């Protein structure tokens, strides 16, 4: 089980930056496409505002959480979770 924990640690370490890249990629795809539709009068300007708002909230919150996931992965790789630490007195 400890080997699995360490291998998965690598997965979390890789997954965290992948998630961040995916978020920015989606942001840079969605906003220009929407700007074109708003300029063409096919979508109201308020939709662009709500899309900006969504991405500001998402990136502000989930980028630090992704760093947390990377840290969790790092601790896993280092074997910090090898022993079943569950009792608070162990801490």
């Amino acid at each position, binding site marked *: 089980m400890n080997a699995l924990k360490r291998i998965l640690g690598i997965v979390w370490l890789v997954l965290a930056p992948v998630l961040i890249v995916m978020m920015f990629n989606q942001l840079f795809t969605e906003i220009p496409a929407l700007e074109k539709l708003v300029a063409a009068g096919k979508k109201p300007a308020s939709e662009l505002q709500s899309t900006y*708002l969504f991405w500001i909230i998402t990136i502000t919150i989930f980028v630090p959480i992704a760093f*947390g996931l990377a840290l969790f992965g790092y601790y896993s790789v280092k074997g910090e979770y090898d022993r079943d630490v569950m009792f608070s007195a162990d801490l």
Partner: protein
Amino acid sequence: MSTTLSNQTQALQTQTDKGIWGVITASSVGTLIEWYDFYIFGSLAAMGIIGKQFFPGDNPTAAFLSSLATFAAGFIVRPFGALFFGRLGDLIGRKYTFLVTLILMGGSTFFIGLVPSYATWGAAAPLTVLILRLLQGLALGGEYGGAATYVAEHSAYNRRGYFTSFIQTTATLGLLMSIGVIILTQSVLRDENGVNPNAAFEEWGWRIPFLISIFLIVISIFIRMRMHESPMFKKVKSEGKTSKNPLKESFTKKANLKMVLLALFGATAGQGVVWYTGQYYALSFMNKTCAIDSAQANQIIMIAIVLVTPFFLVFGWLSDKIGRKYIMMAGLLAAILAYRPIYQAMYNVSDINKKKELTEQTKVDTKTEPVKDKPAVLQTEKVTKIFEDGTKAVLITKTTKFDNDSKEPKIEKSKSITLNGSDKWTMVGLIFIQIFFVTMVYGPIAAFLVEIFPTKIRYTSMSLPYHVGNGIFGGLTPYIVTRIIEATKTEAQPSGDILAGLWYPIGVAILTFIIGMVYLPTRTDKDVTD
């Protein structure tokens, strides 16, 4: 470390068992009222009323998303409330800290009920609501951890899961109470003969649930004033072992920080999305996607909650017998596998395109009236359709025609479906299943969180992963899911992929399930007096 408890420890953990029901009642009532306060806003946002009242009306979808964003803001600040009040709770004690959170929550809720609408106050209205919503979030961030810790620190070690599960029922019962008050207010103000029977409620009646909060808070403060400090905290304090800086100890000490991360990714993140998908998003889905009459949708959620709530206690009790981990993980796995079929079934139940219309009973009413203070007329067409199975659909088209012919008419369409008796119970069943998953992942989690952190930093340490998981991962669920669905809308498919948004809760639940299964230990910490 020995798993056998010393006589002194056992005595400390069971000494107040005689008074445990008083402790549970006092803690639960206050927490229930805080959840009620917090969820009125969410329930009204899910019904689209907050959007109509506090945001510009030129685009109903944007207004709905903005109201969900304000709703989400309350969740985003919860971890900050957890840090601020958690620190206070570990320094000065549990009792006084959650008295402060109660007053802050009650005051904010009451004032939301007094804020003028966007039409009256302009941009100041959404801004004020946002500030009050942030205060609500801060207060709730400080409340839950305190209540769970307080009850756990009074509980016998072998009944901790059961006793803390009463605190776990409060979030769902707070939602139930908020919907109940909304339904009651709606039914009192309902005018069956009007074009929109809920017009009075949507115009001003929605303020009532916010305003009555002040009475509930006064009662709760009175009850909590009579509570005593937690025996474990008193012991730690008398020995001079309280933390000098709980924040520093919680998050800069690696041994503790790694447990905070494990609690977040291995338990609370998945729990949060399951909680909010099963209750909040389900309500939003019934209202917005299935277009079920808001009063009926609320009634469906209420019935399901009443039927399923005892299972919080069942799974809390069971976790004392077989451990917390596998119950929580089973709930997550069930949710992962069942969400898409359940939501497809919910949509099918309410899809009028699949029902046979009794065309001879179709009724069309048209009304034309001048628009107040504008050179325009409003034409309202109300089509009432009855279907063979007893389902009723009301389709309203509002067309604003401007005197200036060069300006395009503004058309707003809305639909309201009232399900027949059998379909209504099918819907109750589908919601029941989702909340059943919630009882599995949420029932044992308070005991689980209490057990992995020591007394002197417990309030701070357990509050943060709980509020990041439940508040951020979970609380943002309706917002993110709705946004994903919006992104799938195209000219060819104007309603988008209605199930696409579910990949968010499913993805988070999968992550938590894998981490929980691999990393969480199965044993339970009997001694939380450290």
